């Protein structure tokens, strides 16, 4: 876009690397709104306090008397304009200054508001974060209780099932035992019946008569014994 032309550097000084120093907030002290204080200080050693004022009055009278400054119609308009200006500035100067300061204050206050709102928001977020962390700390109680209750429930179920299993197994074993007992009883009865049957069968008629005669003789003996004892 330069068209191939060589360009000279315009800025030959060193660029400023740091921000500019701040401007003074208030102007220097002035007398009569025009003449700086330094002039009065400059004349003070030689002419004292009234020196500059005498100089001013003397100059004005000199210009008037020698007609170096001619009093024209313009003089009167000067007097009226300058008088009006001085009056207005003296009367309303400070209030206008305060008004303008207020304008600046409003801008600063708005920016402060934004800054404060931002800081407050971040602080609120920090508080929220801390509260949430504290809550998370206490969360383990809840999980402990839940864990305990689940463990207990599991335990209960386990015991229940164990008991059931025990009962079932006992049932089975009782069954087998009762079956065995019954078989045993049945066999005994059967054997007893069989033995009695055969004994009864084996007893012949002769044996039977002999046994009965023996029993009677025994009984007669016993009777005699019994009759002898009660005497003692």
């Amino acid at each position, binding site marked *: 876009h330069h068209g191939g032309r060589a360009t000279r550097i315009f800025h030959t000084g060193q660029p400023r690397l740091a921000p500019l120093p701040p401007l003074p907030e208030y102007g220097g002290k002035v007398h009569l709104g025009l003449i700086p204080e330094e002039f009065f200080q400059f004349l003070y050693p030689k002419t004292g306090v009234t020196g500059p004022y005498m100089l001013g009055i003397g100059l004005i009278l000199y210009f008037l008397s020698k007609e170096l400054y001619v009093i024209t119609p*313009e003089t009167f308009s000067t007097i009226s304009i300058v008088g*009006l200006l001085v009056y207005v500035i003296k009367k309303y100067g400070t209030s206008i200054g305060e008004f303008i300061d207020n304008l*600046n204050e409003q801008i600063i206050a708005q920016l402060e508001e934004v800054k404060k709102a931002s800081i407050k928001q971040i602080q609120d977020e920090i508080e929220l974060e801390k509260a949430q962390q504290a809550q998370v700390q206490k969360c383990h109680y809840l999980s402990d209780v839940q864990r305990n209750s689940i463990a207990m429930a599991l335990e209960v179920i386990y015991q229940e099932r164990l008991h059931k299993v025990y009962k079932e197994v006992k049932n089975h074993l009782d069954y087998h035992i009762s079956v065995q007992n019954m078989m045993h009883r049945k066999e005994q009865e059967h054997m007893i019946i069989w033995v009695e049957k055969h004994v009864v069968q084996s007893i012949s008629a002769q044996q039977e008569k002999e046994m009965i005669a023996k029993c009677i003789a025994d009984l007669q003996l016993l009777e005699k014994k019994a009759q002898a004892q009660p005497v003692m």
Partner: protein
Amino acid sequence: MNENLFASFITPTLMGLPIIILIIAFPNILFPSPNRLINNRLVSFQQWLIQLVLKQMMTMHNLKGRTWSLMLISLIMFIGSTNLLGLLPHSFTPTTQLSMNLGMAIPLWAGAVITGFRHKTKASLAHFLPQGTPIPLIPMLVIIETISLFIQPMALAVRLTANITAGHLLMHLIGGATLVLTSISTPTAMITFIILVLLTVLEFAVALIQAYVFTLLVSLYLHDNT
């Protein structure tokens, strides 16, 4: 006396050099540009003032009209400041010269009118005939409206020139009367001086009002044509 009366209106030259250019460029120094977030009192005050004037003047325009904001605000600032500076003793007011006011009025007016003719040709031509005129009067009315249109820039320039010049002249004359009367009878001189003070107050007002009127009318012409 005659020479003296109009002496303040001749184009100022300093040893043959036209310092009129410096005088016209001088008010620029009085409006420093803001370069910080919080500025000094002068700049803050001017910022506030310009914002007030801008809001009051440009709300009635549409988007196309608002592109003229910079021009109009510069205009009112320039005319206001030159008028107010002209009230200082022994100073020259550029706006007393008809040449300069014509130089401000004609291009602005022509710009507004030509914009209107370019973009809304039918509406601009329709402005030449107000609504509801009886038919026999139409030709005459068109001629009258044309003349009224072409007189607008002249009126703008001449109004500003005449007002400011008349004010300055009147102050000069009454000051002269006061000067002469001081040696004849002092109380009359006092009365005349009071008249001069009142006139000065009026002049301050006129300085600002003329600036406002000029700019307002230009913006009105703009509003008609966008």
